[in-house]
Structures are given as C-alpha cells and as structure tokens.
C-alpha cells in the first residue's frame, strides 16, 4: 500500500505534460519525479542551476540538486547561474512548480517559510517560484495532528497571495477558481463527508471523481 506522500506524488505526476518545464520543491514534491513515465518528456529545473535535472547519485560529482543532494544532469541539459535560474522562474518560463506548504487557503494563498517564534527556515526560492510559475501545485498532507491545513485564510505569514492553482492531498484534489475552492477528486478510501470534515475551507462540491491514477 502506498503511504500518504506516495499517493500525493503519484497523483501530481499526472498533471505533468509532455514538454513541460517543471520545478519540484523539497519533500513530497521531490517524489513526483518517480511517478513520471519515461515516455513523457518532462524537463526538471533545479533552482540552484540545472536545466535537465536527473536522478540522485552516489558518484563523486560537483552536481547537487536544490536540496544540496548529489544528483545528475540528463543529456541536453544545462548548468546555469542563479540569475538565469530565476529568469526562468520569475519570468514565467516554468510551466509547473510543485511545492510543499504548511497551510494553503481557499483563495490560493499559501504559507511555507516561517512559524513565528518557532521555526524560521526562510523562503529560499519558493516565493519566486509561486509568483512566477505558470501553474502552482501545492502538495501537502490534508491535516496536521487532526487540524486542517486547507483553510479559509492562512494564519501564518504568506509565501505568496492568490497564487496556488491546484491542491493535492492524500484525501483530495482541489482547484482554486475565481468563485472559490472546488473539490475535484477524492481518494477512494474517503467519502465527501470525510474530506469536508477534514477541511476548514469552504468547498464547492459539484462533480467529484475518484482520485485519478490511484
């Protein structure tokens, strides 16, 4: 059986289309690459300076991914500096970014970089990514110790306002639209009621499908 993180990663992989340039964040988003079929031509960017990021490696190399872990570059790839990397990111040249978050809300705002008084990891490249990528997918578990992470309004300092497009959890797939947060798909282990109960945000529920690819 797949764990929560694997369910989220596998479902998000379906959103990646042939020809897309994609940046995956640290954590659950990194797992997405494992579920992209080889025949699908997706190019991964790492903000530290790779176009065409490949799998991790144990080999002795000077190539690391954006988490500082030894990785590889695929044929056709390029090494770039931070300025060029963020020209891709901020300039709208990244088709999809998948990022983790501590909270996300029904307006598409998200928080991921600071818990005041407790933990301050910093925003890294996340603020630029959510601002500049054409499509922003948020990957996170639905709740934290029973408390919903899908909120009416984020309570933590924001990473960006109104930028998230799709939210994928182990329970559901939700899309942020002008009229609010739509529940699109639910995992077969849960009912619509289960999802609604675990969600603080107002859900617009019309045609709900079973979670694709699961």
């Amino acid at each position, binding site marked *: 059986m797949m764990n929560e993180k694997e369910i989220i990663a596998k479902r998000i992989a379906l959103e990646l289309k042939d020809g897309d340039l994609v940046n995956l964040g640290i954590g659950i988003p990194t797992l997405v690459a494992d579920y992209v079929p080889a025949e699908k031509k997706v190019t991964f960017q*790492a*903000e*530290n*300076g*790779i176009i065409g990021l490949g799998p991790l490696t144990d080999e002795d*190399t*000077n*190539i*690391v991914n*954006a*988490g*500082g872990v030894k990785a590889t*570059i695929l044929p056709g790839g390029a*090494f*770039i*500096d*931070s*300025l060029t*990397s*963020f020209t891709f*990111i*901020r300039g709208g040249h990244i088709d999809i970014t998948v990022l983790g978050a501590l909270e996300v809300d029904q307006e598409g*705002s998200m928080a991921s*970089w600071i818990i005041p008084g407790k*933990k*301050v*990891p*910093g*925003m*890294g*490249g*996340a*603020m*630029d990514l959510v*601002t*500049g990528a054409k499509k922003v997918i948020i990957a996170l578990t639905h709740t934290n110790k029973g408390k919903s992470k899908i909120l009416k309004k984020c309570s933590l*300092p*924001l*990473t*960006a*306002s*109104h930028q998230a497009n799709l939210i994928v959890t182990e329970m559901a797939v939700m899309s942020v639209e002008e009229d609010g947060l739509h529940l699109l798909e639910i995992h077969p282990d849960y009912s619509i009621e289960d999802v609604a109960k675990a969600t603080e945000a107002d859900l617009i529920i019309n045609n709900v499908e079973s979670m694709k690819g699961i």
Partner: protein
Amino acid sequence: MRGFIDKKRFKGFLKDGMSIAVGGFLTNGTPEKLIDLVVESNVKNLTIICNDGGYEDKGVGKLIVNNQVKKLIASHIGTNPYVGQLMAENKLEVELVPQGTLAERLRSFGAGLGGVLTPTGLDTIVEIGKKIVEVQGKKYLLEEPLGADMALIGGAIADNYGNLQYSQTMRNFNPVMATAAELVIVEPYRMKEELHPEHIITPYPFVDYILVGEDDE
C-alpha cells in the same frame, strides 16, 4: 586581475566589520579554504551575504558558529540550526531575502542599477518598508542594490589571466557575486593555463586576486 596571492596576503585584507559576499548554494561552490582563513583570522562583526546559512561545519556556517557574524543576509537558514538559535537569542541579525531577489539585488549593484522591481514578496511580510511601484498596470516591489566589501568566489576553473569558468552546479551565485564587491577573491577549484574565450563566464577584469599555494606561512 591584479595577481595571485597566498594565504597570508589574503588575511591582510580582512577587517572587523566588513561585509563579505560568499558564493555557493548549500556549500556547493563555496570557497571553503578562504572561509577557513577568515575563521583563523577571527575578524568580528562581519556582514555575510550568502544564499543560505550553510551547515554548522561547512560553508559560511563555520563563521557563524565561530561568532564572527553580526548580520547574515540569506534566502534560507534551515540547514544550520545554530543560525536559528543565535537569532532567537538576538545575537545574530538575519535578513531573509527571496532567492531570486537576492541574486537581482547583487546584480543591480554590480551593474550600476538603482535596484530592481520584482513581483516576488508582494502581499507578504517581505514588502514591509519597501516602495511599491506600478509599471504597465502591474505592481512591483522596489528592491535595493546589494554589494559587499569583499566577495569570496568558489567552484571556479581559473586560467592564468584570471578568467573563470565554473564546474557543474558550483556556478550558482558565484558569477553575480564577482560583480558586486570592491575586492573579488577566487579560490580556484582547478587551474588551467588558458580558457577558451567562448567558455568564460566571469572575465578577468571582475577578478582581483586568485588564492594559490598550500603551505606558504
């Protein structure tokens, strides 16, 4: 380029209270030998500009652990718990800057620009105290130029003229930092007699000194 220097000469450039931009991303491409020399010199009250806080035993983290840093300007500090601890004790000032903004602020300084307009950070606490400018109907934050007294450059394949190329992902912030400091010092990853003109990323006029030699003290 002005020339090649040894460790002793490098230490002579270090002063209390100076600002130092350090290349590298999670220490990939960070000039570790130069940092060790700054640690040995024990200069204090430094302002460090780096993508991140490194690790406790690697990168600029070593300067922070040695309590030489007054202020850190970085995009991410999660890999060095000591940074968070000093911050909580009010012993270290940390200015967190979105990564793309950090790169562009350095570029502005190096390119003689008065700053950069970016949408990154709008409607977040990053915009506090900053001017919001509207251009072609869109809002942007005015982010000011950021330069340093000294830049420490790593990951470089240097030639005898002082031209630089970079090895793999060690490029990251190094080229932009080489444009944004009064004194630019390179710790080469490797030396080469002459780089091909079409392969040079940082041309020699940006470089002041290249560290050479192992045991010269």
